[in-house]
């Protein structure tokens, strides 16, 4: 079958970006918006075609082979190591294509309403296209270095979009923070790639993942600080993923990233870019399987993050921050799901792979929905603070309904999509060990709790004063909500195992009833608790705060992680390294150089006395000099 048109999926957004960036300020806002949206619509259609073709194609001995319609040499380091740019089509990349283009399309449409009349509207669309281009390039990467390239590009486009309101200092610092933290993670990624490529002498995925054995043999023997080099390489690469996917302790950039326009948060910081880490691990899944100790690490990181983020989300008052932390926690679910895998075969411990991909898919939809909904709310009340909201359900009916659907989905209530995917994850966790199962179930329960705290806080509770009564958003904003809501309702029934599994063979999803029931029960209990606390305005929440103040305070301040970072960057880097170095440079190094000059001058000053102008002194020096020279010569030649 012919996939040559798939190049357009990359070419078009790049073209859109260039047009909007260079010609943007010539064209009207409306035109720019329509242009961008139209472009993205085409891209979406194209990627649906690809998906249709790809999944429509019948299996070759049980699996769908990976296709590489394009793969050309971009830069060659050595005879073996070359960076190629190309397009790799396999189940997960095609799935990602669908997710990205869908959400991106929604966001494009939505933004026409949300960003209406903003300064730099064209710039905004240009950046969106740039991001779409980079993200698509990332998912279709044929080799790890191409992935790194686009990895950096999504980083920069997210930087640009977070800092979109560049006159707002908070936005600027947030964008800076986001870029630098992820950059730091990418350092690990880069070092990992270097290690990996040094031993395997290849970047390309199909060779790396051919079978884990190849990788192990090529690095066999080499160890560093007790661990095998393979483990180090994969751990470092995961560090990159953790940075992008905001895993603890590299998560701190994501909450601040909410300074960007809300649609951006929906697209980049909820649905697509932040799952890049998950995608990376999934991409290298066979390799990770060959280094179980790293998988163990991944599981722990994911689990801790999930719990941490969930707890913090319970007490945040800024609705976007709540969503941000829920995002972190949900991604952690996917990470855990990958971590708990033990083999390639879904039925024997490889379930998590499918589960995490499934959750990635559903989560992208309902989390985008949540953010867009939150955007609509903010649009209506011009504030992010829960205290300025409450009782909005009669003003924003559509938003209310869609938001509720999304909350149910994320809480894991059947029949919404979130239920199915999360259920698979929990099942996978229980497969690994009861410990992880319980842990994740608890987290799921907390998730339900804080989501409904949020829901009630926005749409119920007592009304806040509004200077002008809030009103429902324009159609451009509501239509995407509705579409996403619909997807959220039906996505759960997609036979996901047919399409994506760890070993590529079809796997029939069957609900593990015990797991499902426990999780649903927990969720319902949590929701009821939330209802009891927040549905009607009352003093119970304050009482609870008073009951355990320390915990609340810590949670509210996100366990002071940001302060730790503040300390590291400003105290250590700036005060204790940079300033001393700068001082050393100016005073010691430079001082030495200047010292040569000053010494020379002072010597010149000292000896000026010889030139006394007195003839007889001159003669005296003359004869003494001659005598000394003679004496020296005699000493060297005759006596010595």
């Amino acid at each position, binding site marked *: 079958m012919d996939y040559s048109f798939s190049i357009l999926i990359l070419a078009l957004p790049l073209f859109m970006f260039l047009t909007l960036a260079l010609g943007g300020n010539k064209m009207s806002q409306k035109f720019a918006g329509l242009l961008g949206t139209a472009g993205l619509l085409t891209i979406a259609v194209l990627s649906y075609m690809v998906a249709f073709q790809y999944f429509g194609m019948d299996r070759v001995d049980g699996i769908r082979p990976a296709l590489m319609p394009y793969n050309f040499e971009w830069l060659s380091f050595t005879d073996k190591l070359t960076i190629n740019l190309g397009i790799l089509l396999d189940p997960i990349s095609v799935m990602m294509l669908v997710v990205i283009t869908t959400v991106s399309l929604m966001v494009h449409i939505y933004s026409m309403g949300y960003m209406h009349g903003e300064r730099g509207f064209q710039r905004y669309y240009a950046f969106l296209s740039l991001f779409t281009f980079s993200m698509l390039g990332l998912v279709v990467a044929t080799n790890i270095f191409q992935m790194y390239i686009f990895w950096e590009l999504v980083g920069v486009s997210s930087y640009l979009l977070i*800092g979109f309101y560049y006159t707002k200092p908070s936005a600027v610092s947030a964008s800076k923070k986001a870029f630098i933290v992820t950059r730091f993670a990418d350092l690990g990624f880069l070092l990992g790639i270097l290690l990996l490529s040094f031993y395997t002498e290849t970047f390309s995925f199909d060779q790396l993942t051919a079978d884990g054995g190849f990788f192990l043999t090529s690095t066999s023997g080499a160890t560093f600080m007790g661990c095998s080099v393979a483990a180090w390489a994969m751990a470092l690469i995961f560090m990159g993923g953790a940075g992008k996917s905001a895993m603890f302790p590299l998560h701190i950039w994501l909450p601040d990233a909410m300074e960007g326009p809300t649609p951006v948060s929906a697209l980049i910081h909820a649905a697509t870019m932040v799952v890049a880490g998950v995608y990376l691990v999934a991409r290298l899944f066979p390799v990770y399987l060959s280094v179980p100790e790293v998988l163990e690490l991944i599981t722990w990181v994911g689990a801790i993050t999930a719990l941490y983020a969930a707890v913090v989300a319970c007490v945040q008052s800024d609705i976007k921050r709540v969503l941000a932390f829920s995002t972190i926690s949900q991604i952690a679910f996917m990470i855990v799901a990958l971590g708990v895998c033990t083999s390639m075969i879904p039925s024997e411990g490889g379930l998590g792979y499918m589960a995490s991909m499934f959750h990635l898919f559903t989560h992208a939809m309902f989390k985008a929905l949540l953010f867009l909904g939150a955007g609509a709310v903010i649009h209506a009340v011009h504030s992010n603070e829960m205290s300025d909201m409450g009782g909005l359900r009669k003003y924003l009916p559509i938003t209310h309904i869609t938001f509720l659907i999304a909350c149910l989905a994320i809480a894991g209530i059947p029949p919404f999509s979130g239920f199915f995917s999360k259920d698979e994850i929990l099942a996978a966790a229980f497969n690994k060990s009861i410990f992880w199962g319980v842990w994740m179930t608890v987290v799921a329960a907390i998730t339900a709790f804080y989501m409904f705290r949020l829901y009630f806080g926005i749409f119920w509770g007592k009304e806040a004063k509004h200077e002008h009564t809030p009103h429902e958003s324009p159609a451009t904003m509501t239509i995407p909500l509705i579409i996403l809501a619909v997807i959220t309702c039906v996505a759960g029934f997609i036979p996901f195992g047919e399409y994506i599994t760890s070993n590529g063979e079809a796997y029939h999803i069957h609900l593990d009833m015990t797991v499902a029931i426990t999780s649903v029960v927990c969720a319902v209990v949590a929701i009821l608790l939330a209802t009891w606390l927040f549905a009607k305005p009352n003093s119970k929440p304050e009482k609870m705060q008073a009951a355990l103040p320390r915990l609340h305070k810590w949670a509210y301040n996100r366990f002071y992680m940001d302060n730790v970072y503040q300390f590291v960057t400003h105290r250590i880097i700036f005060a204790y390294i940079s300033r001393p170095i700068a001082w050393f440079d100016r005073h010691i190094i430079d001082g030495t150089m200047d010292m040569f000059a000053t010494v020379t001058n002072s010597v010149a000053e000292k000896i000026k006395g010889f030139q006394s102008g007195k003839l007889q002194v001159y003669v005296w020096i003359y004869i003494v000099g001659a005598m000394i020279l003679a004496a020296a010569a005699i000493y060297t030649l005759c006596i010595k």
Partner: protein
Amino acid sequence: MSILSIFVIIPILMMGGLFLSKNMNQIRTVATIGSALQLIAAVALVVLFCGKRAAGDTAEMLFMADHVWFQALNIHYAVGVDGVSVAMILLSAIIVFAGVFASWKINPLPKEFFMWLILLSIGVYGFFISIDLFTMFMFYEVALIPMYLLIGIWGSGKKYYSAMKLTLMLMGGSALLLLGILGIYFNSSADGNLTMNILEIAANDAIPHSLQKIFFPLTFIGFGVLGAMFPFHTWSPDGHASAPTAVSMLHAGVLMKLGGYGCFRVAMYLMPYATQELSWIFLILTGISVFYGAYSACVQTDLKYINAYSSVSHCGLVLFALLMWNTTAMTGAIMQMLSHGLMTALFFALIGMIYGRTHTRDIREMGGLMKIMPFLSVCYVIAGLASLGLPGLSGFVAEMTIFVGAFDHTDTFRRVFTILACTSIVITAVYILRVVGKILYGPVQDEHHLKLTDAVWYEKFSTIVLIIAVAGIGIFPLWVSDLIRESIKVISERIIQ
């Protein structure tokens, strides 16, 4: 008469033209036409070179020519280019071209300014084309001395001090160099017929190991001073800070590359044994300058100082990669020279333009320029992204090549320094974003800035030329790296064997 001599003849003619020209317009015409011709010639040279290579001419140097100059001392005027020199010539041509436009409204004494600038470019071109030690050294010094007047007359700040310091330190470097060159020459051949021709010296390979250990440090430090190697870099912050725009561009963009070029063309190529023996010392020094420069850039408040220190860091990376002496790393080093040359030139051009409007370079006194002068700000962001190694711009390609190459060494010592060097990409991001955040974003600091205007056509032109070059290398790196690699191979293999 080789076509290479064109690169020396055109500037000389330009100086004649400038000398005769009466008013500003004539000066500009001469400068523009001349530099354009140089650029065309450089491009033509690249094409011819690639053509010859493609035609299977595998000689180490092409377009060679050799005229006896001082019979008695067998000093020749010998020229020839390999891929590296071609790349460097192209770089110089681009930057000179951009520099002419960057100093379109130079004042006072425009005529003298351009004449000195062109004299400098004569030195640069001559250095890159010549393969005779004496001629090379002569052109090297020709390139150095105009800096004194260019900074001293048209500079700003404490220009006298900076100019004097720069000149004296570089001359100190060339003093070591001269001794090294003489030493190399007098040991250039086992059988009495001495030569100054680099290729012949390399072919003879007659320098005794014991002497190599003396002359290698002499030459390497001698060039390293110009390459801003720690601890001989202190001329560069002051020098750059005080220099006028075009001069900073040429100086950081091209002149500092003379250092790196000389380091491998003379020091490493002619004395492979000493390179292997002693490279560790200089690895330490250059490794230091890589992150030392980056860290000191973090706390500077003067735009030009920030750039100067980042130049220290990047040029340190160049020498660092050279000292890894394997083909990949050295190729990366040359590409880093190219990319750093272009983007630093871009940086200094933009800083000059911003300074020309705000009359301050202190980042604490600026802010929100993105609103006021969008074009310059966007260009600045692009330059910044290039500098912190964003894929699709030249910096990324060079750095990645360097790191991959440097990683080829398995011994712990080099590993550690490679990883240290890698960390610089994070620090770079820190100080670049710090500046961007402070001066381009955020609220406007100074009400007077609101009246300022954006770039005018010649400024736009000069920046766009550079940006195109930066992006060109970043997006299509393959031809550059191929151009460089096969020439580097000869040298690296010579060192490794």
